[in-house]
């Protein structure tokens, strides 16, 4: 198996490693880097539990080769709280009871970060379509939608305050 040297930034830290060409990014993150917040719920990009940010865009890391991420800037669930302060989406999921078992939650939050970046003020329908690549089997989605709405409102307020 051919080995490749890859260098990428993960949650602000530079990482260099020798990896097999076939190593999936989700396994690199979970097994090689021991960051297990990114989960695996399928292997067909259907469930979204493995969603991370690559160069700011949400990507399902279970069907993404590690070598392809060479030079990328990656963010995972472990990297979104700033100096111990929750990201507005982390806070909102807690406030609105947007999680039960927690297994889909990291992917759902990473996807929602991208959603709110491209559409800071989404309607309920836009949120539902926006997270439709991420499956949750516990919550029935009502409270996930509410969580994204709360975060959108808080992020808009923060933005206003910083202007």
């Amino acid at each position, binding site marked *: 198996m051919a080995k490749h040297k890859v260098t990428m930034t993960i949650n602000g830290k530079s990482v260099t490693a020798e990896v097999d060409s076939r190593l999936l990014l989700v396994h690199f993150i979970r097994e090689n880097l021991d960051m297990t917040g990114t989960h695996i719920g399928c292997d067909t990009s259907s469930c979204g539990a493995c969603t991370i940010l690559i160069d700011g865009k949400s990507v399902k890391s279970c069907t993404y080769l590690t070598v392809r991420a060479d030079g990328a800037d990656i963010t995972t669930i472990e990297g979104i709280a700033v100096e111990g302060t929750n990201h507005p989406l982390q806070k909102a*999921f807690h406030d609105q009871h947007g999680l039960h078992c*927690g297994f*889909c939650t990291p992917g759902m939050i990473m996807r929602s970060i991208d959603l709110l970046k491209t559409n800071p003020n989404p309607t309920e329908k836009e949120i539902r379509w926006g997270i*439709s690549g991420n*499956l949750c089997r516990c919550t*029935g989605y009502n409270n996930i939608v509410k969580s994204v709405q709360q975060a959108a409102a808080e992020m808009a307020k923060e933005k206003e305050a910083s202007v």
Partner: protein
Amino acid sequence: MFKCKTSPEVGGMGHSVKRKEDARFLHGKGKYTDDVKLPGMLHMVIVRSPYAYAKILSINKEKALAIDGVLAVITGEDLAQYNLHWMPTLLSDSQMVLPTDTVMHQSQEVCAVIATDRYIAVDGAEAVDVQYEPMKAIVNPFKALDEDAPLLRPDKEGQKDNHIYHWERGEREKTDAAIAAADVVVKERIHLPRIHVASIETCGVVASYDKDTEKMLIYLTSQAPHAIRTILALVAGHVGLSEEKIRIIAPDIGGGFGGKVPVYPGYVIAIAASFLIGKPVKWIEDRSENLVNGFARDYHMDCELAATKDGKIQAFKVSTLADHGYTDSSANPSKYPTGMFSICTGSYDYEHAFAELDAVYTNKAPGGVAYRCSFRVTEAVHAIERMVDKLAAEIGKDPAQLRFENFIKKEDFPYASPLGWSYDSGDYKQTLEKAMDMIGYADYKKEQAEKRAQGKLMGIGICTFTEVVGAGPSKDFDILGIKMFDSAEIRVHPTGKALARFGTKSQGQGHETTYAQILAEELGIPYTDIEIDEGDTDTAPYGLGTYASRSTPTAGAAAAIAARKLRDKGKKIAAHLLEVSEEDIEWEVGKYFVKGAPEKSKTIQDVAFAAYTNFPEGMEPGFEATHYYDPPNLTFPNGAYICVVEVEEETGAIDVKRFVAIDDCGNIINPMIVEGQIHGGLTQGIAPAMYEGIVYDDEGNVLNGTLMDYLVPTAVESPHWETGHTITPSPHHPLGAKGVAESPTVGAPPAIANAIIDALYPLGIKHLDIPITPDKVWDAIQVAKAKA
């Protein structure tokens, strides 16, 4: 309404306090089975059968073993040397761990590859060469009993055909006579499809055997770790794995829904591999392995409901054919092969009922898990609720009115049902009225009449269900002889903080919060000061686990009673501290005080401290209590659900416009969590109603074994759920609570099906089996039009 006894800071019952367990999940620090990594850990991948029914001619391991990093290929022959190739099921059947000669369903385990790395294990699995001789599979359960059907289980002594068992409850003759004499009888064959729980975390295990200490440490995706430990000890005791040497830790679980109750062959193989090799072995299912190797439902129910011409129900009869796959591995209490199916008489008062069931073997995966349902309650409720609607349509009566006229009355509780249950409490009329008010039932009826006049298809569906949960009283309920109690153990530390441990295991239900709230209610110690611990068989008290909505009815009750034992001890300590007699001490949440002198008081924290530092002479020191709760009865949560749909005639597309769910689960511990559970269960209710069903072809191949074609609802398919509740406390539960989280999975499918059929009724369509998909609707419309 329920009035809170405690302040929000103490956070007893009725407070929507935020969940204590959230932080780790939100930060990616949850610890699930696949997150466990042990030194020297090996990985296991299973080779599975491509055929539904085949003889195994040979298994050639050579090429696999030649791969660098592949350490072993384990076959049925290997396990047979230790007599571990078969295991018993909970219902006295037997299941292969690994086959020695025949595979019985597609994707059955054939052998397992152990390697140093996950990827190498997959390489090894692909390199194993298995030769099969395929045979004609039995896929249709109705053909399983044909004379020319092959005998699927010749291994079972005395087995002459593919019939597994017959079960019946009620009075056949009287029910038949009542049906024969009735003005109106409606009949239907109703199928509940084979579905899968599809929790987002699949099943898995990390088994780690230490040859020096002879201890087997097992991290397991298990809703019932204690029971599984006992079963493992019974299955593998002969090779030296006795119960005190087995420690099962169920870490965080990514959704269970009943699918993480059984012992799967993969668990046993990994445990055996670790035992033989002496190193940790991890096995995590992939998604297709998960979807194809277990199931729920799959009942074909022939129903007859008899009534007077004005709609007074007189009798109900249901004869069921159950497709169990190649073995009966239903996860049911031992005396209940059909679970609580006899709740099928529903929320209505009538005299005669009879239910019978025949179970058969087919070449399908075994399972029969209680998927978010207290053992076959979903099947039972679907049968009666579809039939009640069918009766209403037949005699032209409003289905709500028909239900009001037949409901068990509030004053008739406890109610003895015709099939032998004692319903504890309910106010069905009030619950349905509330649902009708909330949705605006009368307005929708008007709108429907207008739309029908314009040729548009609009439907309103009702379901008023009664569940039976919280198994259960020891006189009736056991699993392999172990009575279905559950347990709580509380330790209050000298500083007044507490640790409580339970025999149950949360999979997302929020036990770390709700159990702390129960103790806050009973002791007045703030819920934030109470740690909850579950899932480790070395530390938690023995219990039967979390499924069938039993945590609150059993372990929740145990927590309340253990806390009351502590309060009794605390009273003696308070009397000692306040220098009065025990009779002069009174309790209000969080403190003891002297009768008539409330300024003379001691807090629960004062008393806890004194229990270690200044207790009365002769008293046993410490402040701990344990209770094993044997419930006197089950609890009977109920609800009224109403669904409004529109169907597009040209395409068969179904649009769920509104869905209102009113639930009555007795007193509520945390309204936020209860509502969240209802939301989730409703989406798991719309799933089989409109989207999910495992589909087999004639040769027994599963046609939708991935999440790309097995349609788990997304946020788009899931409607905005509207919820509410009524409260009729359980009279026998110490907190007046009932279970709740399964009601919506049980109640939603018939409400949705009834709404869709109601929409299609003007076209002459009187029944469709779920999942009711657009193509099924479109086909039915074409047939109906051709007839007209």
